[in-house]
């Protein structure tokens, strides 16, 4: 058993079930109204996420998580937009892959912006060369896929790290639905960068601070 598994196992106490069964206050009911329908989570029935948000407002903790996610999605969406229009960067056989990834990231931006409404942060300034470290990111496929894989793995770890902050809110399902898309992207891109699609049986989360530290070099 590797360290990663130990890390997870340490978190789990089988006896916890006892106290869970004893029942605890449902967070769901507290948030049900204002966050009744982020996106298209099939589990939640509601007509319009945007109006529900605008009317009810979101708990600050949820706003913070969604804005954090939005910042990363802005970064990714801008990255693929630039890459997909850089002539000669992406070999023909991979163009559909990166167009699909780009479309997903753009959709994530739209979804989160829509959910946050006026509370949404603005798109950050970006520097995908990371101050010159990846100067040929949009002309050298090798550099591009290395940065792409980094962004996708970072996205997976970032959403995973925020899941606990969304516990008991319907926003959780939507966040999970984005989280697994980022993981699909990561596993699709990593082999193009000479890596396996996965690092082991359990993926680790990253805290907000860890994610921001990793993303900061790409923010202008």
């Amino acid at each position, binding site marked *: 058993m590797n360290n990663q598994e130990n890390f997870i196992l340490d978190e789990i106490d089988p006896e916890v079930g006892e106290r869970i069964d004893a029942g605890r206050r449902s967070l769901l009911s507290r948030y049900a109204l204002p966050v009744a329908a982020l996106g298209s989570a099939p589990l939640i029935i509601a007509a319009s996420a945007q109006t529900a948000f605008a009317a009810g407002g979101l708990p600050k903790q949820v706003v913070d998580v969604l804005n954090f996610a939005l910042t990363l999605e802005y970064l990714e969406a801008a990255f693929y937009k630039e890459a997909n229009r850089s002539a000669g960067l992406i070999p023909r056989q*991979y163009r559909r892959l990166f167009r699909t990834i780009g479309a997903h990231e753009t959709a994530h931006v739209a979804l989160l912006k829509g959910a946050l409404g006026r509370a949404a942060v603005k798109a950050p300034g970006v520097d995908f060369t990371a101050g010159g470290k990846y100067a040929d990111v949009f002309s050298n496929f090798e550099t591009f896929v290395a940065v792409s894989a980094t962004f996708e793995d970072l996205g997976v770890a970032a959403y*995973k790290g925020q899941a606990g902050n969304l516990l008991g809110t319907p926003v959780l399902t939507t966040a999970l639905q984005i989280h697994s898309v980022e993981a699909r992207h990561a596993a699709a891109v990593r082999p193009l960068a000479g890596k396996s699609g996965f690092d082991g049986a359990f993926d680790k989360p990253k805290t907000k601070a860890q994610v921001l530290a990793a993303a900061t070099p790409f923010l202008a």
Partner: protein
Amino acid sequence: MTTPGLNRRNLLKWTGVGATVMVAGSMLPNFGISAALAADLGAGDIGVLNYAYALEQLEAAFYTQVIKTPYEGITKAEASNLKAIRDHEIAHRDFLKKALGRKAIPGLEVDFSKVDFTSRKSVLATADVFENLGVAAYNGAGQLIKDVDYLAAAGSIVSVEARHAATIAALRSGFGSDAAGGKNVNSKGLDGALLPSQVLPQAAPFIVTPVTANSLS
């Protein structure tokens, strides 16, 4: 792994929305043994973990067979990926079993008689179904979890299932749109999310052991 006959398999009946998914142990030919083998997932977080445990058992058994009897023309890269995936599913299964302790459902009897393990196409198509079902199952189960540590554990597993789904898609059709989830992600950029009552009927044809989810919605 055992592959029992059709009659027993047909006894398994998962039913509708949020409801009872099951079949009485008493309907089975050998009452004593079958009743003992019947598995109720339980309620609350334990129920969710048992649900995940059932799905991981299914996946682990499937890939164990895939590696035991490799399909014709399997490449080195394919074997290596499928072996890694098998090991992950076994680790997930064992992790959940350990977390559940005494509350774990029994080992499930599986039925892969519909899968042609000699055929690359059949094996990868089945893997595709299992991985995407797994992703949607974990995504939909998150909202049923109350304990933050269990949510973290589920989160650490679901993204690996999504990585598997992408890997299988790439084996099937190369590094195109499907590898990024093109077929499974909707126009809002969202992956699937299904409730147990939606997932279990899809898993049912592969599971012989009667499983009840009376307390899980």
